[in-house]
């Protein structure tokens, strides 16, 4: 017969906060355990229409709240690189029994399951979501490409929302060309999502030979944050040099409101969360507590039982910020700061800069036992700092694997582009990817392969 489309027969994975008809959709929460969705998210439908094969739903932080993929009811996600020869060589186990349980590292989050799925060769592409960095962060930690498209480019219909004004479906693939292919299939206006733009999207192919001489790369100085590992700092500088040597203009720029983005994000995110989670009351679907005293008591018990502490904490904060007496001082203020943050980018892009180059994460992936020493809120505040401004401004951004760390784990770098200029963004990302030749993960049980001959390097469309 005829192939259904470009992805016919290609295995894909989908983060479990996307609705999949007839398939359990849990958001890694007790609230939706056993919830069989009756419809497909638009992006899922588009993949299926192309003939993609859905391998499974991937694990995440509960309701996408977190930066480690450690706080879901199905347990934490383990980074496949924990089991790679590269990591094991750099971290010889102290004793055979300790190895498996204490050394493994996190994937980052919240789309950790999707990143791990792509990273471990179980599928060619996976859908994640990105609200503050949830696609780019695990992409960097898992050594895969993570694309956050411009807000309004890809439909959110069927994506269970965290922050409606910042969420986007994210794309995780092994190479930039694949990301462009998937983007081409998913982008475009959806009448079911009133926040998608009306303009027709033209899918594109990336050129094989790219000339960066006409480009101006901006290096935002505020992204050199305390806590940024020296390794990543060095990598970042090296990348800037790479562009300079190739003839691009590389300049330092300023996004002065960057330091305020964490608190701003916290207010706006929790407020929207409080609102979005209000529908989970056990009445129409999902978990319902066995409490029959009154509707209120049923609601209270259901929500206490269904949500983890992270979700409940954000709901309480969000409701606080939305109280009449607090609304002006918190919510409206945060909206104004958000505008300032977005304007920082407008100014910089308006002054001749084409693409911004920044780190994606502060360091390589932490061991799980280290990561859980701090709570979710602390970790999120630390880890989101380099990625969330792009969500505030609605801009497209991509994390590209750049090199391995001293510990043998992936390090990624981030490119941020102009609104709806994904073609330029991905072109630059592809050029960078070609320069750095990031190594293939060598998983223990797999036969060893030549880097250059591995299908990983070729685009999906050439298969």
């Amino acid at each position, binding site marked *: 017969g005829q192939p259904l489309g470009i992805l016919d027969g290609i295995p894909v994975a989908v983060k479990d906060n996307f609705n999949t008809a007839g398939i359990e959709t849990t958001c890694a929460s007790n609230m939706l355990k056993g919830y069989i969705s009756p419809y497909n998210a638009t992006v899922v439908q588009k993949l299926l229409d192309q003939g993609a094969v859905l391998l499974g739903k991937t694990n995440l932080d509960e309701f996408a709240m977190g930066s480690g993929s450690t706080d879901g009811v199905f347990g934490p996600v383990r980074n496949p690189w924990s089991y790679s020869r590269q990591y094991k060589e750099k971290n010889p186990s102290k004793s055979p029994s300790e190895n498996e349980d204490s050394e493994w590292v996190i994937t980052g989050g919240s789309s950790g399951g999707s990143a791990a799925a792509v990273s471990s060769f179980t599928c060619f592409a996976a859908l994640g979501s990105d609200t503050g960095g949830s696609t780019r962060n695990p992409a960097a930690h898992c050594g895969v490409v993570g694309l956050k498209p411009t807000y309004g480019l890809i439909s959110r219909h*069927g994506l269970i929302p965290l922050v409606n004004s910042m969420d986007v479906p994210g794309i995780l693939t092994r190479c930039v060309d694949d990301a462009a292919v998937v983007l081409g299939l998913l982008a475009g206006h959806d009448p079911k999502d009133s926040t998608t733009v009306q303009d027709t999207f033209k899918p594109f192919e990336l050129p094989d030979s790219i000339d960066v001489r006409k480009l101006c790369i901006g290096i935002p100085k505020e992204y050199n944050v305390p806590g940024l590992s020296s390794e990543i700092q060095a990598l970042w500088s090296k990348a800037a040099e790479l562009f300079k040597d190739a003839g691009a203009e590389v300049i330092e720029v300023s996004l002065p409101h960057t330091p305020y983005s964490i608190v701003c994000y916290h207010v706006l995110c929790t407020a929207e969360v409080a609102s979005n*989670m*209000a529908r989970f009351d056990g009445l129409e679907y999902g978990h319902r507590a066995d409490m029959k005293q009154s509707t209120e008591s049923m609601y209270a018990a259901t929500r206490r039982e269904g949500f983890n502490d992270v979700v409940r904490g954000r709901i309480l904060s969000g409701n606080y910020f939305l109280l009449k007496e607090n609304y002006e001082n918190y919510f409206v203020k945060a909206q104004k700061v958000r505008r300032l943050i977005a304007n920082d980018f407008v100014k910089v892009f308006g002054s001749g800069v084409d693409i911004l180059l920044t780190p994606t994460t502060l360091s390589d992936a932490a061991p799980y036992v280290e990561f859980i020493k701090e709570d979710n809120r602390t970790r999120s505040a630390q880890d989101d700092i380099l990625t969330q401004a792009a969500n505030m401004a609605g801009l497209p951004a991509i994390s590209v694997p750049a090199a391995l760390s001293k510990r043998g784990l992936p390090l990624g770098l981030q490119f941020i582009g102009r609104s709806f200029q994904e073609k330029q963004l991905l072109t630059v990302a592809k050029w960078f990817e070609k320069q750095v030749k990031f190594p293939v993960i060598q998983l223990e049980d797999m036969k060893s392969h030549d880097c250059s001959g591995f299908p990983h390097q070729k685009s999906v469309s050439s298969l």
Partner: protein
Amino acid sequence: LVSWVPVVGLEIHAQISSNSKLFSGSQVQFAAPPNSLVSFFDASLPGTLPVLNRRCVEAAVMTGLALNCSINKKSLFDRKHYFYADLPAGYQITQQRVPIAVNGSLSYSFCIDNKMSQMVTKTVRIKQIQLEQDSGKSLHDDARSQTLVDLNRAGVGLMEVVMEPDMCCGEEAAAAVRELQLILQTIGSSQAIMAEGQLRVDANVSVHHPGEPYGVRTEVKNINSIRFLAKAVDYEIQRQIEELENGGTILNETRAFDSKLGCTISMRDKEGKQDYRFMPEPNLPPLILYDAKSLPANMNHQQVVNIDWIRERLPDLPSVKRAKLVELYGILPEHSFTLLNEDGLAEYFENVIKHTQMKPKKVIGWILNDLLSYLKEHACEVKDSPVSSFLLADLLNLLERKEISSSAAKQVFEELWKGEGKTPLEIVKEKQLELLQDQEELEQICQAVIDRQEDEVGAGMLG
């Protein structure tokens, strides 16, 4: 006795007459089987998004224009949060910050002391009109300690019309609502049938001494007819006056009208005042409307809502219709009110005029006295009248041509009412009600009658 000034404002919710709901495609229908008209969005299934219904926007614009409002070319949607079983999402989408129409007015008239001859015309200011979702319905089953929830109504479009506290008594409130009802029915934006819940009225009532500031107001709910509205308002005014004259205070509370007892009862909330935590609706962009001036040249008029286009197509409002009736037919203004107050009566009247030689000023008497009282007595609507306008016209023609007397005409009318299918002429012949034109024949009959009377008188005197 110190005088009191009662102050009455109204909040009216009118269900929009449309095929589908405000933000989803499910059907709008009264008395359908429970939960048979519920889309995924209406049930608040996670991941669903609102899509604005164009017809609802047009209905609101029509209503705004009919009420002399300024139409806001840009209006916004907000979320109003509270937990209740019939509100699946835990919030209602409404327009709290910038509604679709503001600053209008409504003129209404009523008779003083129920005398048709003394009509008073007043104006009430319309503060605003906003689009919002209706909630579902809950039925409390105390016997089984359960609540049954029907979401058919959840998400149906409503226009909330806010009338400023310019009214002073139940009669005024009732007259204002009656006029609003007629306007809505005339322009077709709502069928406004109170009995079917398509028009719901809440009254805000307070009293104060002349020259002093407004008193504390109460909100009266659960008013199911225009008649009960007048009663509820008047009762509440009286209650407040008595309370204050006895040294008590008025609480700012919600009270329910009990139609059986004819009084208002406190609905005291255990938690006190609600904080609705208003927040902008992030899934709906601002609603932009155009007029002839602002409409971009290349835009397809099918894709936008053009205020001027709608204004041009508005039908004659009741006030205009009444004025035309008065001018055309020389009837009294109060007659025109009655004609428009009964569904179909004005059309009936005009049809009779068309088919009879009798002058309108005389026809109106038959319509308002004879026809209307029969209709009322038999609780019959104009459209179900056994006496059609054609039949009545025939009857009036007989009268006009002096073929029957007016008392005979009334007898014929009574016969016609039986609806046995006979024409007026047939009834006249049957009952020999023809007026005798022959003088001599008349004299013979009279003489015969007198002769009979004399016999009787004689018989009486003897006995």
